[in-house]
C-alpha cells in the first residue's frame, strides 16, 4: 500500500521561507473569493466568541460584573461554545476543505453557488442562535446542541450542501486515487450530518435519561467525528505540502482512519462515568477510550516522522510552527483524555475545572492551532498578500503562552478541587481555592484574546489585494 499518490508526487512546491511566500497559486478567482469569505467570517466569530469567553471567565473572579439578563453567565456560556464550534472552527475548516478537496481531486469545486449558499445558511444560523441563547431560549441546556432545532436546521442544511458539493467534486476527480485527506474530510461531513440528525430527532430520547445516553454520544462525536477528522484530514494535506515531501506512511493514515471511526464512536459515554446510565455503556466507553491510543499514536507518529529531518523548514516558516504545536497537543490531550476516562481518575477530575482545561487544550491547542497553520500556509498563496511577519509571530506566541497559562493552572486547580471533595471538606472550600487559578485563566485568556485580534488583523492584511489586480493575474 506504500505507493505514492499521484497528488503528492506532483511537483508544486510551496515556498516555506519566513520572509516570502513566493508564487501565488493559480486558482480561480471564484474559489479565492469563497474561501476568503469563509475565513474572514470565521475570524469574526473567533473574536466575538472569545470576547464572550473572556467576559465569562472574568465573572468567576468578579461575579457582580453586571446584572443584565442577556449577559448572565448561564446564557453567555453556550453562546461562547456554540459560536466557537459552529462559527469559528467549523467555518475555518470548511474554508480550507474547499481548497484541499478540489486541489487533490485536480478539478474545480463542483458548485460555487452551493458553496455560497452554505456560507449564508451557516452564518445566519449562528447569528440567530446567538440571539436566541441570549434571550434564554435553548434546547434543554444540552451542551453543544443548545441551539433549538428550527435554527440549527439551517446550519445542518449548510453542512449537507457542503458534503454534497465535496462529494460531487471527489466523484468527478481527475486522478484515480482518493487522497487520504479526502477520506477524513468528507467522512467528517457525513458523520456530522448523521450525528446531528440523531441528536435532534425525537422518538428515542423523550423521557428520563434516554436523553443522557444520546447526549454522551453527541458530545463526544461532535469533537471526535467532526473537528478531529476534519483537521487531521487538512493536516494530511498541509503538512507534506508545506514541507514539500510525502507523508511518512500513507497506510498508517489509513489504519488511523478506520480505528478512529470504530473506536471513537463507542466512547461517548465516558462523559457520564458513575452516572445512572447503564453501567455496560460506561464500561464500553472506558475500554474504547484506551483503544483510542491506537489511532492517536498512529496519527501523531505519522506526522512527527514526516517532520523528522525537516526541522529547519520549521524555523523558516510561519505556518509550520502552528502545525507542530497542534500535533503535539493532539497527542497530549488524547492521552490525557484516556486517563480521565479511568474510573479511578475520573473520580478526582470529573465535574472539576480539569475538564475545562482538557476542552481548551483540545479545541484550542489542537484544533485551532492546526487551522491557523493551514490558513497561514494557504491564504497568502491564494491572494498574493502576506501578513506582517511580526504580527504572525505575535499571534503564535501570545496564543501558545496564553493557552498554557490558561490550562496548566486549571489542571492544578481542578485536581485540588477533586481532592478537596474526596477529603470531605466543606463545599465552599473548593470554590474559594479556585480563585487564584481563575485569575490565571483570566490572564491566559486575555493573551489568547489579544492574539485573536492580531489574527483578525492578519486576515485583513491577507485579503486579496484588489479584485481587479487578481483578475488580471488569473487571466494572464
Amino acid at each position: 500500500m506504500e505507493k505514492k499518490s499521484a497528488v503528492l508526487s506532483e511537483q508544486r512546491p510551496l515556498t516555506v521561507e519566513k520572509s516570502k511566500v513566493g508564487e501565488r497559486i493559480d486558482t480561480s478567482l471564484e474559489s479565492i473569493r469563497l474561501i476568503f469569505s469563509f475565513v474572514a467570517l470565521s475570524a469574526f466569530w473567533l473574536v466575538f466568541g472569545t470576547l464572550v469567553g473572556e467576559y465569562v471567565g472574568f465573572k468567576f473572579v468578579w461575579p457582580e460584573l453586571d446584572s443584565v439578563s442577556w449577559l448572565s453567565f448561564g446564557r453567555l456560556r453556550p453562546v461562547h461554545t456554540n459560536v466557537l464550534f459552529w462559527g469559528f472552527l467549523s467555518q475555518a475548516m470548511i474554508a480550507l476543505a474547499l481548497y484541499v478537496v478540489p486541489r487533490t481531486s485536480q478539478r474545480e469545486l463542483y458548485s460555487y453557488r452551493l458553496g455560497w449558499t452554505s456560507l449564508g445558511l451557516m452564518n445566519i444560523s449562528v447569528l440567530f442562535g446567538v440571539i436566541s441563547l441570549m434571550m434564554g431560549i435553548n434546547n434543554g441546556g444540552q451542551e453543544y446542541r443548545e441551539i433549538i432545532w428550527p435554527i440549527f436546521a439551517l446550519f445542518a442544511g449548510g453542512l449537507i450542501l457542503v458534503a454534497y458539493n465535496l462529494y460531487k467534486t471527489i466523484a468527478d476527480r481527475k486522478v484515480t486515487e482518493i487522497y487520504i485527506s479526502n477520506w477524513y474530510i468528507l467522512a467528517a461531513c457525513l458523520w456530522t450530518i448523521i450525528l446531528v440528525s440523531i441528536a435532534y430527532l425525537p422518538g428515542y430520547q423523550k423521557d428520563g435519561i434516554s436523553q443522557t445516553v444520546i447526549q454522551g454520544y453527541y458530545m463526544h462525536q461532535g469533537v471526535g467525528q467532526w473537528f478531529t477528522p476534519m483537521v487531521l484530514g487538512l493536516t494530511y494535506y498541509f503538512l507534506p505540502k508545506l514541507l514539500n515531501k510525502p507523508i511518512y506512511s500513507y497506510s498508517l493514515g489509513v489504519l488511523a482512519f478506520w480505528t478512529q471511526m470504530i473506536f471513537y464512536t463507542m466512547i461517548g459515554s465516558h462523559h457520564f462515568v458513575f452516572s445512572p446510565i447503564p453501567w455496560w455503556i460506561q464500561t464500553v466507553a472506558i475500554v474504547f477510550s484506551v483503544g483510542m491510543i491506537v489511532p492517536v499514536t498512529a496519527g501523531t507518529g505519522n506526522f512527527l516522522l514526516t517532520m523528522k529531518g525537516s526541522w529547519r523548514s520549521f524555523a523558516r516558516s510561519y505556518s509550520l510552527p502552528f502545525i507542530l504545536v497542534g500535533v503535539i497537543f493532539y497527542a497530549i490531550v488524547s492521552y490525557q483524555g484516556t486517563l480521565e476516562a479511568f474510573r479511578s481518575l475520573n473520580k478526582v477530575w470529573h465535574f472539576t475545572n480539569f475538564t475545562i482545561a482538557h476542552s481548551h487544550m483540545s479545541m484550542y491547542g489542537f484544533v485551532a492551532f492546526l487551522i491557523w497553520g493551514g490558513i497561514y500556509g494557504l491564504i497568502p498563496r491564494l491572494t498574493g498578500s502576506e501578513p506582517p511577519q511580526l504580527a504572525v509571530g505575535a499571534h503564535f506566541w501570545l496564543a501558545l503562552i496564553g493557552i498554557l497559562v490558561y490550562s496548566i493552572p486549571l489542571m492544578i486547580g481542578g485536581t485540588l478541587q477533586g481532592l478537596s471533595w474526596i477529603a470531605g471538606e466543606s463545599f465552599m472550600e473548593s470554590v474559594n481555592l479556585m480563585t487564584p487559578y481563575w485569575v490565571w485563566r483570566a490572564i491566559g485568556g486575555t493573551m489568547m484574546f489579544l492574539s485573536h485580534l492580531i489574527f483578525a488583523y492578519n486576515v485583513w492584511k491577507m485579503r486579496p489585494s484588489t479584485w481587479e489586480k487578481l483578475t488580471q493575474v488569473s487571466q494572464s
Partner: protein
Amino acid sequence: MKFDFHKNHKLLFGTIFWGFIFLSLIISVLPALWVQRENEPLPASEPMTDIERKGLNVFIGEGCVYCHTQQVRPIEMDENWGRPSAPGDYARIDRQDIWRQTPAVLGSERTGPDLSNVGERQPSAVWHYMHLYNPRSVVEESIMPSYPWLFEVKKSPGSDETVVSMPEDYAPEQGQLVATEKAEALVAYLQSLKQVPMDAPASSVSNEETSKEISESQKKTIDGASIYSNNCASCHQNNGEGVQGAFPSLVGDPVVTDEDPTDHIRAVLYGMQGVPIEGENYSGIMQPFEQTLSDEEVAAVINHERTSWGNDAPTITAEDVAEVRNNDELNEITAEEE
C-alpha cells in the same frame, strides 16, 4: 468498479456512511430506546406540578445546569449530596415543548453544589429568594450570578404578592422587592428537588435505615466546624451573625449560650419557624436535622456553636442529644396514647 477503497468513492463513502450509522445504532439509539422503554418513576415520587415545570424551564433557560449537577454518584465522596441517583429519579422529566428537547439536568460540572436533594437541605423559600436576588447576601464568598431580573421593585405590593426583604446592604434603594412569577416557579422547582426512597414508598422504617447507614459511613470524621459550614452557614453565616430579619445571629444568642442545652438541641433536631427571638421576628424557616444528622454530629455542631465567635457555654455530648431524642419520642408516644 473495483473493490478498492482508494479508487472507488462509492464504496469508500458508502462504507463510511452506513458503517457509522450501524455503530451509532448500537451505541446510542438502541440503548436510548431501551432506557426509554424501561423508564419507571420511583413509586414514592409525585408527578411534577405545573408551577414546578415552569420552574424547570426557568432553570434551563438561565443555564443553571452549567454550574449545578443533579447527579449523585455511587461513590463515597458524593455521600453528602444524598443517596446515589437512579434512572427513576429523572423519569418524570420529559420534553418541554415542540421547540425544545428534554432538559439535561445531570450536568457536567460542579462549580456549585449538587442540587439533587437541595429541597431537603434548603427548604426555606425566603433563603432561596434572597439567594437568587443576590447570592452574596446569604453566602458571602459565593460566585453564583445574581438574578435581579426575576424580581421587581414595587412601591406598594399587593397582598397576594411575595415580598422579599433583603438586608440593608443589598436591598433596593426604595420600594419593596417582589418576586415575579418566574422566581416563584423557580423556587417551587428547587423546593421540589427532594430525593425519594428508592424502592418502598416513603415510610419511617426505610428512612431510619438509610439514615443509620449514612451515619455508619460518616463516623470516620466528625468535625463540628465543617458540619456547621455544610449545614448551617448558608443561613447563620460562617461568622455566626446570621442575616438581619431573616436568620438569627447565634452570637450571644440566649439559647446557644444557655447552660441547659435542651432548647439548643431541640432547635437543631426539630427546626424552628415563627418564634420571636429577643423580641425580633425572623422571616426564614429552619428545617429539622433529626433525620440528616446523627447524635454525634448534632453534638459536634452544637459544641462548635457554643465555643465559637466569642460564645463560651458548656459543651455537650452525643448522649445528651440521645437523651433529648428519647425523651421526646416517649412523650410523643404517650401523647398519642392519650
